[in-house]
C-alpha cells in the first residue's frame, strides 16, 4: 500500500473538518465538561459515571439503529419497543424468576417487534417511517396497559432490585457496550452484510441489479436494531429495575438527534459511520449536562434546550460543508 501525503489545501481542510467535526465536538464537550465540573468543585469521577449511565442505553440502541439509517430509512418506534420489551421482560421475570429467561425474552421481543415492522414494510411495500409511526403508537399503548394494569398503586412494574444489582456496575456495562459495539463494527465494517447495506443506502436500484435484496438486508438491519433495543431494554432494567409508561419515553427522538449529532448522514449510504451513535449519543448527553450545570432554575430548561438546538444545528452545518449541493437538500 502506498502512503500518500495529506495536502492541507482548502479542499482537504474542508473535507477533514467535515469528517472530524463530530469527533472534535465530542472532544471539546468532554474538555468543557471537565472544566465546568472542576470549576464548580463537583466530583468529576462520579459525574463521568453518571454521564456514562445516561448515555449507555441511548448509545446502544442508536448504534443498532444505525443499520436502519444506513439504508436511508428511519425508525421512530425504537423508544416504544424498548419500553415494550422491558415491560414484557419484567412480567416474564415475575412469573418465572429466572434472569436468563427474562434476558432471552427481552431480546426475542425486541427483535420480534423490529421484525414485525420490517416485514410489514417489506411484504406490503409500505413506507418504513410511517409503519414505524404506527408501531410506536401500538407498542406504547399496549405497554401502558400492561404496566398500569399490573402496577397498581405503584404506577409501575418492577423486578426485585437484588436480581440486577450484581450487574449494576461499570465493568459489566462497559463490557456490554464494548461487546455490542464490536459486534456492530464487525458486521458493519468487516462483513458482506455491512458493505451491502451501505451500498443499498447509496443506490437501491443499482443494488437490486447487483443481486442485493433490499428486503433481506432491511430485515437484517432491523434485526440488528432489535438486538440493540433488546440490550438497551435489559440495561434499562439493570439501571432501574422498574418500568413505568414513561420509561424510555424520549429515547425515540434522542436516537435521531444522537445519530445526526455523531456525523451520520440522514440519507445513509457510503458515508454512514457505525461510531456516530456512540459519539453523538454521549456528546448529546454531555451537552445537556453542561447546560444543566451552567443554567439552573425553572426558566433555564427552555433556554438550555434552545442553546443545545443551536449547537446541534451549527455542528451539522459545519459537518455538511463538504457536501453542499447547488439545490436545496431534501
Amino acid at each position, binding site marked *: *500500500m502506498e502512503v*500518500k501525503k495529506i495536502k492541507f489545501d482548502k*479542499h482537504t481542510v474542508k473535507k477533514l473538518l467535515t469528517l472530524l467535526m463530530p469527533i472534535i465536538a465530542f472532544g471539546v464537550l468532554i474538555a468543557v465538561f471537565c472544566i465546568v465540573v472542576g470549576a464548580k468543585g463537583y466530583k468529576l469521577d462520579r459525574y463521568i459515571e453518571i454521564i456514562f449511565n445516561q448515555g449507555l442505553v441511548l448509545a446502544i440502541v442508536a448504534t443498532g439503529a444505525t443499520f436502519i439509517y444506513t439504508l436511508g430509512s428511519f425508525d421512530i418506534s425504537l423508544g416504544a419497543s424498548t419500553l415494550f420489551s422491558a415491560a414484557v421482560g419484567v412480567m416474564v421475570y415475575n412469573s418465572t424468576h429466572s434472569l436468563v429467561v427474562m434476558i432471552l425474552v427481552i431480546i426475542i421481543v425486541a427483535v420480534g417487534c423490529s421484525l414485525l415492522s420490517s416485514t410489514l414494510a417489506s411484504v406490503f411495500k409500505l413506507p418504513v417511517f410511517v409503519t414505524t409511526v404506527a408501531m410506536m403508537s401500538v407498542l406504547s399503548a399496549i405497554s401502558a396497559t400492561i404496566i398500569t394494569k399490573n402496577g397498581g398503586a405503584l404506577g409501575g412494574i418492577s423486578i426485585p432490585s437484588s436480581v440486577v444489582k450484581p450487574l449494576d456496575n461499570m465493568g459489566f456495562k462497559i463490557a456490554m457496550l464494548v461487546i455490542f459495539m464490536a459486534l456492530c463494527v464487525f458486521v458493519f*465494517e*468487516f*462483513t*458482506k452484510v*455491512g*458493505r*451491502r447495506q*451501505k*451500498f443499498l443506502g*447509496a*443506490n437501491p*436500484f*443499482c*443494488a*437490486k*441489479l*447487483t*443481486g*442485493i*435484496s433490499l428486503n433481506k438486508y432491511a430485515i437484517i438491519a432491523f434485526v440488528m436494531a432489535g438486538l440493540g433495543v433488546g440490550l438497551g431494554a435489559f440495561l434499562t432494567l439493570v439501571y432501574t429495575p422498574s418500568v413505568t409508561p414513561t420509561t424510555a419515553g424520549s429515547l425515540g427522538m434522542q436516537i435521531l438527534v444522537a445519530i445526526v449529532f455523531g456525523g451520520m448522514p440522514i440519507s445513509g*449510504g*457510503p*458515508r454512514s459511520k457505525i461510531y456516530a451513535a456512540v459519539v453523538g449519543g454521549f456528546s448529546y448527553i454531555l451537552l445537556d449536562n453542561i447546560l444543566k450545570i451552567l443554567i439552573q432554575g425553572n426558566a433555564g430548561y427552555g433556554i438550555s434546550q434552545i442553546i443545545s438546538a443551536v449547537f446541534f444545528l451549527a455542528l451539522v452545518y459545519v459537518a455538511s460543508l463538504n457536501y453542499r449541493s447547488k439545490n436545496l437538500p431534501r
Partner: protein
Amino acid sequence: MSETEVVQENTIPLLEIKNMTKTFGPVVALNDVDLTVQKGDVLGLIGENGSGKSTITSIAAGMQKATKVESMRYKGKDWAPSSMLDALDNCGEGAHGIGMIVQESGTIAGITVAENIFLGELDQFRVFKFGPISRRKLNKAANEALEAIGITNVRGNMPMAALDFQSRKLVEIAKIMLKDPDVIVVDETSTALAHDGRQILYNIINKYRGTEKAVIFISHDLDEIMEVCDTLTVLRDGKIIRSFKKDEFDADAIRTSMIGRELQGDYYRSDFTPSWQEEVVLECKNLVLGDSLKDISVQLHKGEILGVGGLSHCGMHTLGKVLFGAVKPQKGEVLVNGTPVKNEAFAMKKNIGYVSKDRDTESLALTASIKDNIAIGGMEKYAIKNFLIWDPSEKKYVDEQINNLSIKCSDRNQTTGTLSGGNKQKVVFGKWVGRGSEILILDCPTRGVDIGVKQAMYQLMLKLKEEGKAILMISEEMPELIGMSDRILIMKDGEIKKEFIRSAELTDAEIINYMI
C-alpha cells in the same frame, strides 16, 4: 480560429466568447476557450466526454456560470444570462435569445405538457391583472406551440408522465422554439429521437440555416454531425483543437483531433467471420411481457457476441432485464446452463453480469467511491468464506480492476460521481468483469462514452469472447452492432423481426429496414 473568420468582418458574430474558463473543484472543464458563432451557421461541436462541449454551450445558454471569462457577447452586447429562461428572454429587444435543448431530460414528469412549456412565464395566462391563472388559456397556447413545430399528437393538458421519451423531447423543443430564439443549442438530442422526431428537429435546423440565426449542434455521432453541420469545431480536454469547414470534413481527421492521437490498433473487430461455440449458456423461451416482449426466444452461445438492435422502445432493454432476472416475464422462462433464472442474485451466482443502459441510476452508486462500486460485485472473489471482508484483500481486488481497465482517477476512494462518463462505465465493467462473469448482458455499453474508451471497451469485449465468455450486447447504434456482433437480432414492437449473421457486406441501411 482563422477558419471560421472567413465571413465579412463588418458583420458582428451572433455569439462571441473569449477566453472562457470553467472549473469544477479541481477539474478544469474549460480552459481559456474562444468560440464564435456566425449568423446562418449550423455549427457542430464534437469531442469526447468531458471535452467541454456541453459546458461552454450551457454557459452561453444560462445553465451555469463561467469561472472566468474575458468577454461573452451576444449580438455585439455583453451577455451574462442568469438562467436558461433569462438567456431565452432577455436580449434587449424581445425574446430572441439562446435556447438549449439539453442532453438529460429537461422536462418535469409530474406536471402537464402545457405547464412544462410555459413554466416560468405564467403571467400571460392570468384571467385579469393579478388574477388567477387560466388553465384553459394555458392549454390552448401550449397546443398552438406544439402545432407550430409540427407536433399534433401531443396536447397541452396531457400529463408529461404519460408521454414516451421522444414526445417529451419534442415538448422540450416546442418549449424552446416558442421563444423564437436566434441561437438554438441541440445537445445530444437526436439520439433520443426516432425517425419522425428527428425529422422535426432537422426541419427546424434547416429553417435556421443561412438566415440571421444559428444552430449549435452537439453530438457524439460523427456521421450525423457531418451530415447536419456546415462547420465543425472539435474540443478536447477543455480546449478547442480544430475547426473544420464542410469541405474539410473527414471522419478520420476529426476522430484523430478528438482523441489527440491516431487510434492505435483496431476500433471494432477486424475479422468478419462469425464464430461461437456449440454450448448454449443462456437462453430464453417464449418470453411474454406486455407490449415489450411478445414470444421472444433467444439463445446465447459460449464465445459469442450476440447483438440485439432496434429502436429505443422495441423491447430490447426490457429483454436484457428479463434475462438477468430483474424483471419477471408474464410467460416463458430464462435458462442459464439449463436452470431457470429466479432473480438477480441467482443470475449472479450463475456468473451472469448485467450492465444497464441507465448508468447513473442503475449501474453505479454515484455517491459511493470507486472502491465501493467495484468491490460490491466481487465479494465472492475476495471475501473470506464469502462473508468476512478483509480490507487489504478488498483493496487489492479493486486496484487490480482499476489497473486492468486503466480507470483514470486520483485514487480508489474517489467518488464515482466525479468521474467522466467513460471512466464511470469502466468502473461498471470493472465490477462485472472482475468478478469473472461468464455471461455479460450489456445494455448500450458505450452510451455517452468517448471514442478512446469505446475502443478500449470493444477490445475488451473481443478479449472476453476469445476467453470463451458470452456477450449479449443491446445497442441502439448500428455501427457497433455491425462492427462487433457474431449475430444480430433486430427487434421491433416486442418481436424479433430478423436475424443477421456477421458478414463484411452487412450495412446500416439493410438493418434499419427491419427496425422501422
